[in-house]
């Protein structure tokens, strides 16, 4: 059984996600409606997967993601989003999330997404990929933006993969275009997530340095 901690304040949505995961029999879901409750659950047991909403009654989901990333590095984190917009998803990625889940996704899709995440496959949407590659193009302006995203460490190959995803190509198509094996594409995507994450003091310094250099 895969231990899942679900943090969602809207009761119908919480029930829905809980049902969708529980129906498969693969997941043991613990639910929490507030950050305080989530912290309590986290101190009791370390879940394999953390699913969290952003807007919570007693704080922001981003804080919970950061804490979990630091205290429980093995826990996979997904943000639950209504629109799958970059506003929330990119912010979550920067704090250490490696995927997102749409609140109205079909139950089978919900279970499949979490299953893939545990298997090491981070999902990435076309609009998120688009957002990231656009930041690689307009670096100086992006570096100054409040939502600054450090894309300097992405390799050309990773950027090519993101372009492919943004344009709707399948993993197989991308692998074919770039001369990769189809199986290695998810690994690259996971790397991309890790590179975009800013969760240690050292990396924050590195990012500042990068941006400083870019501004020079």
């Amino acid at each position: 059984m895969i231990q899942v901690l679900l943090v969602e304040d809207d009761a119908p949505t919480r029930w829905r996600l809980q049902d969708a995961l529980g129906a498969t029999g693969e997941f043991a879901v613990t639910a929490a409606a507030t950050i305080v409750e989530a912290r309590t659950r986290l101190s009791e047991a370390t879940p394999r997967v953390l699913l969290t909403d952003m807007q919570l009654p007693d704080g922001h989901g981003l804080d919970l993601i950061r804490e979990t990333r630091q205290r429980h590095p093995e826990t996979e984190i997904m943000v639950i989003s209504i629109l799958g917009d970059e506003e929330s998803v990119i912010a979550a990625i920067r704090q250490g999330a490696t995927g997102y889940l749409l609140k109205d996704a079909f139950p089978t899709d919900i279970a499949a997404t979490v299953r893939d995440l545990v298997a090491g496959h981070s999902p990435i949407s076309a609009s998120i990929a688009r957002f990231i590659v656009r930041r690689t193009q307009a670096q100086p302006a992006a570096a100054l933006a409040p939502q600054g995203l450090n894309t300097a460490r992405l390799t050309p190959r990773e950027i090519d993969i993101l372009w492919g995803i943004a344009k709707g190509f399948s993993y197989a198509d991308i692998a074919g275009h770039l001369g990769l094996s189809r199986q290695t594409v998810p690994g690259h995507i996971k790397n991309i997530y890790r590179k975009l994450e800013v969760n240690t003091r050292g990396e924050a310094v590195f990012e500042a340095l990068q941006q400083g250099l870019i501004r020079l």
Partner: protein
Amino acid sequence: MSAAAAESEPMPAAPVAPSRLALRLLFYLALQALVVLGCLGLVALPRPEPPPRWQLTEARLEPPGVTVGLPHRHDASFTMADPPRYVLAFERPPGLPDEPWSVLLPRFTNGVTVAVDGVEILDSRRNPAANRPDRSSPEIVVIPASLLREGRNELTVRLFVWGPLTGFLDGIYVGPDAVLRPAYDQRVLLFLTLPVILAAWQGILAVILGMIWLMRRHEPEYGALAASMAIGVMQAFIVAPSGQSFYAGLNAVLIASAPLQSAFGVLFLLLVLGLKAPRFTTLLFLPGLIITVTGLFGGPGAVRAVYLALGPPTVAFCLVLIAVLIALAYLQRRDAISLVRGSAITVVLFFCVHYILSILDIAPDHRLFLARLSCSAMLIAIGIGLTWRFVRALNEVDSFAGRMVTLVREAEDKLRATLSWDEERARAMALAAERTRLMRDLHDGLGGQLVSIVALSERQQAAPIGEAARAALKDLRLVIDAMDDIGGDLMLALGAWRERIAAQLRAHHIEIAWRVLTPQGLPLHPELRPGHVIQILRLLDEAVTNAVKHSGARTITVEIETVAAADGHRGRISVRDDGRGFDAQAGGPAPLLAGRGLANMRRRAERCGAQLAIVSGPEGTRVTLDLPGRFADLEAPGG
């Protein structure tokens, strides 16, 4: 690498090695020696002379009554009152045809009267040109037939001399006019006409250079050269008969032109070489001015004395100074123009030395004075060079102006592009900010409520409500997605659309086959606006929804390609299903729904300027959307 680059750097400031300097000097001097040799050759050329048969080479000089050979140099430097007489005898052989005879005096200084058998037939002093010792004027006179006797005739030549020259009488020819005249004509051409032509030319150049100087006061070298030339022209054209004291004075003033001219020459050279004219340059003009003043107010004797004391030394000093300056300039710059100038000044120097040797009777020659002529020629050469330089500078200015115009135009274009880019950027940023705000609002409000509706409807088994809520959420995402700045790449909008459609089709257990047939997918459309994107995505949504609801298809295929059109490349998107096709369906609400959907699709295609083709048959329906070459402006964006 940097060391190599440093080595290859030219070092203009480095001093030239002494050995190379010596080599350069040697080359320069060798060239000047060649020029001198050329001048010597020029001087050695035979003068135009009639056959020697008609030449008289012996005369009795009275006083003192001795026989002398011609040409003869007379020591006197002033003989106006009591001139020496040369008495010559010539024979006119009897039985010759009745043709006119002439007396030709190729060269004399300064004036002669010629009498045949005691009757005077020529007084050269009445010919102003002949009075100019620097002109080398010949004289010819026809002996009146009544005077000419067969056999022995007596010819008397009186020689008038006025300073500073001493007297000179070249060999005299007496013979048939037809034989003597060609030589006379050639001498007139060489020693009278040619100087006048050169002087006229010099005058024109003086006017041109003077005008250049007037218009461009910051380039005084043009003025200096124009002044030098103008003085030369005055000297050439103002003629005064000799004899009276005032005119003699005027003559002396004209003689003063040489020192003035050479002083201007020095000034010109200093200016054109870009050297700072030292104080003493003004002093160079002093001798010329003193001579002029003396000529105007003093007597002929005083002028003569002053001129002899000041004139030639000044001219010589100036010429040598010019020669040295040019030589130094050449050593420093190694330019062709210095070589040309150096050769020209060498020519002038040569003829001046020749002139002085001739006056002092050191060099045996016939007192043909060419210094003035060479000076004219040199000034003209320099003037032409200067005019050429001026015209070239004008050309450079023209091309510079042309270059500036191009540069300014480029800069303007760049600025305009930057401005429009900035505008574009500002517009995109405003759009992005608006989108973010909208997204946050929808996220916090409508979106969350819709999600709750979906969740609740699933729990209450109210599927249609859930579906409607989910459709509303889907449309929300579509609207937000369309607002994103995709830089004219419709592929980016289709990528996100694919994900939404795939999730929708998965729920209905329909496969989606996504095929991009050309590597780039669709062409870029910089004019693409969110309004267009939303029209296209809703159109495609409609096509997929129709297939899902009415066709019973198992697979929906989306094909994206770029096809060649008459006027370039066009994008094409087609949605194909393997269902029943709506034409084949009989009755029921489906055709009606489909019909309304089709009308919507057509309207959307029209708004974008795209072509929509729908083919439906038993093997399925195919919706083909041909994108326009350029998307039409939307009157109501997003409508």
